[in-house]
Every structure is written in structure tokens, then in C-alpha cells.
């Protein structure tokens, strides 16, 4: 948690430094490339807070700054996710709105939003969201608005919000099988494998794949609590005779 409240411009600068590093560019930024206002206000702010260091005219992050910056980036990308997934804003609009919105989110709230969104791994543009403490917690609870399929309770369902997979093949595979954003989906069971239902179709996947499918929840509560035996055993003879001829 920052000792001092940073201004919007300083946070922006902090995040930019971090993103430059993430994208594999230089780890430091020449001061000359900054706008005048930033050089006058934001840079001294970062330096006094001990988040950045200056060598000749190059600006780079300190280790505290590194940590703080990842929190800022996390907030920014979570905000984008929130706007796209929950408020259904278009991605291009969302980026701009998220920049403003992000500064309103304070530490602590970001974990709540992360949980609300089902601990997303990437922002809508595909950049990774730095994980927070809530993402590592042992028992992850299902998100309240958006959740990875693997975190749902059997019987719970909603609409596929987005897919995310490190493996391009896997994502294309799921798309071809009909797991497409907008499709209605219900989790049927979690053990021994994840089984979900889309319309009348059932598809079984493993845990890793279930973690890649994010669902926007509808209804909230599970329709049917998980039970050991799906149906009572009575009436089997009748069902057998009817089921066979399909009448």
C-alpha cells in the first residue's frame, strides 16, 4: 500500500514505466521524452515517494516502485475487464473509460473486483493482469458477476463472457465445439471431470480447460444443489420401457 496518495499523472507514469518493461522495451525512460507537466510534477512525486530513481536523465523503477506499479496496472486492467464484462461496453470505449475509472479503485477494492470478475488472467486486449493475493487464496470462491467455469457449483450457469487460453489450438477447438461468447452454459458436474451443458449438448473437459472459460453469471444461485446420486432410483422400470421407444 502506498505511503502517499499519488496523483493521477504520477500513477499514469508509473504504469507506463511498468508496461514498457512488460513489452520488452528499455527498462528506463529518458526524461526528455516526457511532457513538460509530467517532468515538473509527476517525476518529483515518484522520486520523493521512492518509487522511481533517476540516473543522469534516465528514469527507472525502484523495487518498491516495481511492486506499486504492478498494483496500478492490475487495477487498470481489472477496470477494463469490469467495464467490458459486466457493463458490456465496447473494448475501444472501455480503455478510455478504464483509465479514469482505475484511479477511483483503491487497494483492497481491487481484490473485491478481481473476485467479482472470477480472477481474470488477462485484460480484454489480451495483456496479462498481475495476480493479486485473492487469486492465490487456497479456496477460491466463485465470482459474483463473472467466474471461471471451474469455480462454479454444479447447476450454476450463465452466458460465456470470453475465453482465454495460452494455447491457440485449444481456444480454436473450444470455439469450433460451440463454446462461443454469448452461448448459454450450465455446469453439470466437477468431478471426476468437468461436464457442462450448452443447449442440449454436453461437453466434458479437464480442469485446465474449465479454467479458460469465463462465464457471466445469471440467476446467481445454483439451480440444483450438487447431489451424489442424480436421480432417485424409483420408477426405473417405467422409464426403461418408455425411454426405449421414445414415447
Amino acid at each position: 500500500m502506498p505511503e502517499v496518495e499519488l496523483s493521477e499523472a504520477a500513477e499514469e507514469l508509473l504504469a507506463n514505466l511498468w508496461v514498457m518493461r512488460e513489452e520488452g522495451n528499455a527498462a528506463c525512460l529518458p526524461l526528455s521524452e516526457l511532457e513538460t507537466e509530467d517532468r515538473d510534477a509527476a517525476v518529483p512525486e515518484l522520486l520523493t515517494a521512492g518509487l522511481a530513481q533517476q540516473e543522469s536523465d534516465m528514469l527507472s523503477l525502484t523495487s518498491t516502485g516495481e511492486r506499486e506499479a504492478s498494483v496500478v496496472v492490475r487495477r487498470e486492467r481489472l477496470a477494463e475487464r469490469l467495464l467490458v464484462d459486466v457493463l458490456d461496453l465496447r473494448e475501444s470505449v472501455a480503455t478510455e473509460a478504464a483509465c479514469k475509472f482505475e484511479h477511483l479503485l483503491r487497494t483492497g477494492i481491487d481484490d473485491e473486483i478481481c473476485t467479482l470478475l472470477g480472477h481474470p488472467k488477462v485484460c480484454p486486449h489480451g495483456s496479462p493482469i498481475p495476480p493479486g493475493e485473492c487469486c492465490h487464496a487456497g479456496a477460491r470462491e466463485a465470482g459474483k458477476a463473472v467466474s471461471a467455469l471451474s469455480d462454479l457449483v454444479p447447476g450454476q450457469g450463465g452466458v460465456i463472457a470470453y475465453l482465454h487460453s495460452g494455447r491457440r489450438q485449444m481456444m480454436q477447438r473450444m470455439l469450433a465445439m460451440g463454446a462461443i461468447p454469448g452461448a448459454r452454459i450450465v455446469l453439470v458436474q466437477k468431478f471426476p471431470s468437468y461436464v457442462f451443458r450448452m443447449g442440449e449438448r454436453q461437453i466434458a473437459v479437464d480442469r485446465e480447460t474449465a479454467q479458460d472459460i469465463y462465464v457471466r453469471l445469471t440467476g446467481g444461485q445454483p439451480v440444483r444443489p450438487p447431489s451424489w446420486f442424480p436421480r432417485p432410483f424409483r420408477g426405473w422400470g417405467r422409464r426403461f420401457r418408455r425411454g426405449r421407444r421414445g414415447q
Partner: protein
Amino acid sequence: MSARARRFVSRLLMGFRRCGCESCPFAPATRTRKLMLFGSPNVGKSAIFNQLTGSYVAVSNYPGTTVEVARGQARVGDTLLEVVDCPGAYSLTPFSEDERVARDMLLDDPPGLLLHVVDAKNLSRALPLTFQLIEAGAPLALDLNIIDEAARAGLSFDPERLSTDLGIPVVATAAANGVGIERLRALVGGDAPAASSFVVEYPEPIESAIARVEELLGAGYGLRPRAVALLLLQRDEGMWERVRQADAQALTDIERIVAETEARYHHPLSYPLAVARQQAADAIAKRAMRSTGRQVRASFAETLGRLAMHPIAGLLILAAVLYFGLYLFVGRLGAGVLVDFLERQVFDRYVTPVATNLVESVLPWPTWSLLFVGEYGLITLGLRYAIAIVLPLVGAFFLMFAVMEDSGYLPRLALLVDRVFKRLGLSGRAVIPIVLGLGCDTMATLVTRVLDTRRQRVIATFLLALAVPCSAQLGVIIGLLSRHPLGMAIWGGVVLGVFLMSGFLAARLLPGEEARFYLEIPPMRWPSLRNVVLKTFARVRWYAAEVIPLFLLASVVIWIGELTHLFRLAVAALRPAVNLIGLPDQAAEAFLFGFFRRDYGAARIFDQVQSSEAVSGVPLVVAMVTITLFVPCIAQFMVMLKERGWRTAVAVAAIILPFAFGVGFLLNLTLTSLGVRI
């Protein structure tokens, strides 16, 4: 004459079409047309195929693959239809061997009519493929199949509406019960439909990219340029390869356009394309489909289907399937009753004596007559084993396997074992080759191609060679050990333990990505007898064609080995190893034979047990375990060489040989020192 009977007669007469009159159904066909059935797995394509073609089926492998493609003929009015059943495909962009074959068939041999078969109740999920087929440009019709299941789920359809919206003919059928088949026959036998003008609108950057790529493409892809452009945008490797060969000069320009378009999205382009198609599909399905809200309670099959996915009930069902299917049906009925009858009644009483007399009178030289009717003769050993022992066993197994496949049980088994199989470096999908291995390891090694990665294929090949006994071997083992329940339990426990342990080690030692699992679980259905029989028949025929020649070859090799005394040397070399695991000298011969056919080995022991009490109790169990693990048979080894390359094949064999004897040695040591009596 009923329509069915007329079809039957017309099929009978198809060979000699000589009747010249105009109206008669036996009149010569004036035109032929190729009809291709396309669709995702489990939508009843083969039921439609069987309804159209009857029993005139040729199941063959697509060149260079193990994917089975069924071809047959049908006659509608004066049109002779050549019907091809494509392997199941979810989209035109292939991810599996099956899908690649389906796509290549469409591209390389464009049909006169393409019939997209869909499961009616999943219409909105199936329409994206319909769109892709419309984009491809082949004359297309849509078949809403399994309409009865959809009705039971409370869904009703408006085929005319769908037909107007899509611009292609639409027909509703329930092929397994013969509903709507006459309408379908009229449709496929009638005039080919005009190409549809229906177009899915994609988002702007993609549409303009399509337009630009289309301009750069030449002709001759078997698809409309729009479809080619779409496949290129989705980075379809097969299509890029075709462009590299046909339009090499345009390649860099196309590459640039695709890269530019990709840069505008954060996902692969297949993502926005899939979303656009699905939106269009939902809109069309919504207009053509109505939910009557009438939900019928779950049928017995559905309940069984749910239970089969349950961790505890599923295991109980698995145990029941293994006991009734494998042990009683294949083991007792196939290996016991059928083999007994064929071997004792048919061969021992008639074939062998007759053949022996005949051959000995024609070839009075003992050396040569031995080749045919000696102890290891072509007829008395090769043919007898093939026809009297192995064929009934393998046939019974394939029948059971086809029932498991068609009822929808196998995918449920796959999801049940996925977690365990992950530990072995495999995914749940690998149950298909592993279970098939219990029938024939050679065929199963070929079928490992259904697995996604090379790592999985190598591990599955290794496990099949080491610890999965084939039905021929199982039959003999069940026959030998059925009177010793404890021995059977020890054998089962050790083999299962070796399977799990060696798979676990292989997963540790082999580098590569973790397997991923995804599988559509079709509804549990009562398998159609006709489909099951046709499938079993096709597989048995494959087996007979591939494996019986090898049986005969093995007889010749053994004959030469005996003649040149090479075998005596090999047997002598094996003797110390056999003694080491506590078996008498004669057993060495059985092990050597085990290489020619896995079951030869067990069968030799079987003969020895019956003739004397040379092997019984603990040594018998040790012998059975060692023979089960011992090297794969010649046929399987050849397939391993072909499929996995000589390095992997030789490595697998080199690991297995000492391993099998090592396990046998340890087992013998443990059992004797514990004083176990069997």
C-alpha cells in the same frame, strides 16, 4: 410391393440392370451423382448412410490414414447415388485427423450434393458449419436428424422457414427409426439445388480483408474464393500449403493482409468469426425453432448416462461392463463356447484329419507336408489358430466394443478416467485405443492417432505393447485361470499395477506438454443393431485381411526355424530366463512363440497344462503375468515401426523384454517366499 421390399430387390438386381422399361424401378440409371454426408460426430450420419444404402457398404481407410470412410450406393428413381459418409467434423478448419480427412474429401473430390446432417435439438450450434459449407459453394441440403429426440425435449421446427432463410433445401428425419427417409430420398435423388445466396456478414476489417484476399486468389481450390480467404484468415495450415503451391506469387501479399487484420484484434481471427457466425445462427434458429415447453422426464437411458459420469456409480457401471461384456461375453462365450465348438468340433474332428490325409497323399515327403499339417503347419496351426481361436474372440470383442461406442458409453468412460490417465501422461481420450487394445493391440496401436500429441501417442503405444493383453491372450488366460480365483486376482492386480506404474514413470521421463482433455458427451442411446453389426463386420474383415496373412507367415517362419534348428538355439537361449522365473524348460518354447502371436505363447502353456501338469499353481500365474507383459506380437511390432519409427519401436521392445522377466522374477520370489498356494 412395399417401398422397402422394392429397394431390397432393386439392390439385389443392381448388378445386372437389364430391364429396359421406363417406369420400372430396375431400369438402368441414367445419371450418377456423388452424395457426401457431412456433419459433426454423433448426429446419426451413419444411420442415414445405412438407410440410404442398405447393406452395400465398403468401409475403407482414407489413403494414408486410419480414418474409416464408408462408401455405398443408393438408387433413387433413375439416379444412382454414390454415397460417402465423411468422418465427423465440427468445422471446416481441421483440428483432428478425422476433420482433416473430411475437409480434404470435400476439397479434392467435390460432391454432386452435400448433405449436412445435424442433430435437430442442437440446431443453433450446428448452423455455423452449415454457413461454412454454404461459403464453400457446394450444392448443399440440410438434414434435421434425430427429430424424435428433439420432440421429446419439447422442440418443434419449421423446415420451410429454415429453408427460406438459408436458401437451401431442408428435410427433417429420424433416421434410426426410418422417419422421413422417403422425403430425404426424394430430395437427394431430385435435381441438385441451386447455390445459396445466403451470406454471413463479418465485422468490417474482416470483410475488407476477405475482399482483398479474394482478388489475389486464382481458381482451382474446389471452394469459393470467399471460403478460401476465410480459411487463410484463420491460419488454416492445410489451406496455406495449398496457396503456397497454387498462388505462390500472391503469398506475401496475402500474408501481409492477414497479419494486418490480425493486428486489429486481440484474439486469433477465428474468435470474431465464430462469434459472428454464432450470432447469425442464433437468429436463424430462433425463427425456425419453437420450444413447446413440454419436457418429458428423463428416460432410463438418460439416467444411465448421468450415472455413468458419476464417480462412484460410474465405477460400478464400469465393473458391470467389464464383468458382463469382457468376462462373460468375450471370455466365457467367445473364448469358451465358440472356440470350443470351432476347435474341437470343426477343426479337430473334420478339418485337421481331412487336411492331413489329403496333404500326406499329395506330398509324401514329410518335410514338406509338415509345412501344411505338422505340429506348426499352415493349416493345423496357422489357420486353426486364426479361424478357430482368434476370430471368434476378436469378433466377440469387436461386437462389444461397437455397442460401447454406439451407446455413448465410451466418452463417459473417458471423462471418468481422465484424472487417472493424466497421471500417465495421457488424456481421457486415450481410453479409446486402450480399451480397443483389449481386443487387438495391433489395431489399437493404429488408433492411437486419435490422440493429440506425439508424447501421448508414444506413451499409449508403450502401454499397449507392455500391459494391455489382447482378447486372444485374454481368452486363453481366462480359460487357464478361471478355476483359480486367487491366481486370477494376482494376475489382474499385477498387470494393472504395472500398467499404472509404467505409465506414471513414462509420463515423468518423456518431455512434452501436458495432455488436454475435451470431448463431446453424446446422449446415451440404444445402439442400432444394424449399425453395430455393420461396424463389427467391417472391423473383423480388416482384422482377417491384415492379421491372417501374418498368422500364416508365422507358421512358415516356425517351419523354417524348426527345419534349420534355429529355433532350438533361440529356445535354449531363453531357457535360463525362463528358469529364473521358476518355470520348467518347456515354457521357453511358449515364450518364443509369444512373439509370433501374443496368444501363441499363452496357448502353448494352455496345451502344456492340458497334456500334463507341468505348469500349475504359482508358476502358472507367474507365466501368465510374464507372457502378458512380454514383447508385442509381430503384427503389433510392424505397426509400431510404421507409426512411431524404428527408434521408438526398438526402444519399447528393448525396455519390455527385461522388464517382463524382472516382474516375473519378483512375483515368483514374493509368492514362493510368502508360501502362497494357488
